[in-house]
């Protein structure tokens, strides 16, 4: 296992910039998840690390060694593709042993390694089958097996679970995590699914439009999103964003939504210690699961109730703006009912309307 450093990496396809300057250091043995919407450049970054695309600018180091000019075969990485990319004319055994054969590993060692990987992945009975005779889940396992038979410097995963059904995806998530625990190899995992990112990552790299928006532990991104993009992307159901009016004081910030006073917050600063917006117009971020129904508080009207089993997602009208809340309270709510909401001050996030950056408590 090796550290991977990405220094000022840019990638343009023709005149279209896909990555606009990426800096990232990945520690040996770390499980890092690159997450973001389609087209954010996360797969391109992975392909650059693998050597399948050429850099436009910047540098990539694997285990301290600059690899920009090395072809994929000399970077000693293993990759699991979204489409699995199994060799259709080879058996499962052939697929799994291919990389070892190319490295002139002795036959007995290959047989032994493949067998151990097959046991680990539950593929022992399928070794002589061709990929077309396997189910989607089995193919996915073979793709994993092809990666783990050798001890590469790092594993790269390009949305490996997106072709599986929900139940299988959940199971494989767990198994990939367990494999990582057993092998301890540096892993970079690309996904657009924030639940995969939250459940699997040591650290999440949230990307959008070719730039890194925030890097941190899953909990950190959930609790302290740097901007509206990260706040809206991480968490399910997604965070509510409503327009608010803040009065920034030296000691406290008074927040109103619509005409109604909503919360009293600590004094706020913009990122970089600039002054908060003068006109006081801000975006208020509220996590659905952090909004409570209370006896008194901001008034809202129930629009729709979606039961999820565990609880309900309640769609509300808050001063003319749509807001969702998640509650495990089983008290039946009628459409059109007037209720009161309460949110703890630390759960109210403010964002600048122009930049989307989060305002932080001063001091």
């Amino acid at each position, binding site marked *: 296992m090796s550290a991977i450093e990405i220094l000022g990496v840019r990638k343009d396809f023709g005149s279209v910039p896909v990555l606009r300057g990426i800096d990232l250091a990945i520690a040996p043995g770390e499980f890092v998840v690159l997450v973001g919407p389609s087209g954010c450049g996360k797969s391109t970054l992975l392909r650059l690390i693998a050597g399948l695309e050429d850099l436009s600018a910047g540098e990539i180091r694997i285990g301290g060694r600059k690899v920009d000019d090395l072809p994929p075969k000399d*970077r000693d990485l293993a990759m699991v593709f979204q*489409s699995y990319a199994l060799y259709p004319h080879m058996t499962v055994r052939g697929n799994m042993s291919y990389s070892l054969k190319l490295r002139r590993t002795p036959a007995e060692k290959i047989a032994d390694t493949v067998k151990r990987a097959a046991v680990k992945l539950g593929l022992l009975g399928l070794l002589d089958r061709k990929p077309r005779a396997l189910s989607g889940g089995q193919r996915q396992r073979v793709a994993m097996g092809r990666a783990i038979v050798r001890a590469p410097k790092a594993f790269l995963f390009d949305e490996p679970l997106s072709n599986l059904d929900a139940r299988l995806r959940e199971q494989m998530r767990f198994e990939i995590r367990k494999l990582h625990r057993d092998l301890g190899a540096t892993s970079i995992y690309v996904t657009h699914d924030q639940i995969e990112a939250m459940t699997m990552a040591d650290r999440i790299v949230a990307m959008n439009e070719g730039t890194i928006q925030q890097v941190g532990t899953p909990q950190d991104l959930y609790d302290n999103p740097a901007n509206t993009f990260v706040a809206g992307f991480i968490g399910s159901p997604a965070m509510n964003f409503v327009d608010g009016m803040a009065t920034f004081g030296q000691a406290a910030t008074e927040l109103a939504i619509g005409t109604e006073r909503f919360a009293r917050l600590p004094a706020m600063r913009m990122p970089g210690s600039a002054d908060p917006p003068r006109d006081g117009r801000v975006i208020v971020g509220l996590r659905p699961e952090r909004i409570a129904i209370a006896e008194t508080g901001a008034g809202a009207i129930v629009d729709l109730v979606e039961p999820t089993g565990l609880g309900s997602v309640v769609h509300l009208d808050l001063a003319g703006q749509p807001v969702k809340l998640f509650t495990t309270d089983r008290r039946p709510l009628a459409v059109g009912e007037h209720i009161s909401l309460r949110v703890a001050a630390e759960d109210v996030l403010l964002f600048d309307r122009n930049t989307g950056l989060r305002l932080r408590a001063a001091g």
Partner: protein
Amino acid sequence: MRSMPLRRTLGWGLHYGILGLYLVFALFPLFWLVKVSVTPNDLLYSEGVRLWPSRANLEHYASVVTHTDFPLFFRNSVVVSTATAIFSTCCAAAGGYAFSRFSFGGKFWIVGLMLVTQMFPLVMIIAPIFRLLGPLGLTNSLTGLVIVYTAFNVPFATFLMQSFFDAIPRELEEAAMIDGETRFGALLRIILPLTLPGLAATLGFVFTAAWSELLFALMLNSSTAASTFPVGLLSFVSKFSVDFGQMMAAGVLALIPVCGFFFLIQRYLVQGLTAGAVKG
């Protein structure tokens, strides 16, 4: 409800009726070829139009093989067609792979130019080609024919091969390259085995095109020693008569290599070899 089986029967009848008609339309000329080839000369004009002669024998075949230059024409055709098929397919595979996988300067213009070459009627360029090949000593030569046929078949064959490469997911090569292959190694050991149906189809297409080509063979080669069988077939047409029996017998014999060739490659023509490579 009772009309349902009737309607189904009618539909079935119509379906197979149309298929049958098409089959007769496509195969009747072949049948007639065989019928005339086994009809003795004395019955050819005396019996009127019949589906099968009252007496059939193989005398035309015997005389074609023993008394004409047909075995030589036949050998020439096999040499020319096989060489053309192999050269064209190799060029087309290399070109098709490049078009499918790489983006390079001038690609658009090269593809356009290759399309343009397919737009001219061949008759237009026979004279310049004759002028070009003459000084090089490539007229009256099988090599000359192979060069011309290869040049004319490569553009279409390249597009054909490109479509086969396009159908193979890029990730297969990328996976192989990450597994430790060079690009060429990945092409040779991963992509090529999967392109066999495409190679077989291209080989078959070019072989058939070269096998049945008449215009260039007639214009570029005048000596008997370098004639191919379509030219040879014309030798059965003399000033005062046409020897239909021998001509048809030669035609039937000429079908044999093409049939044999397709029999050899048919198992590669079966598609679906890439099934199971990706998702499911």
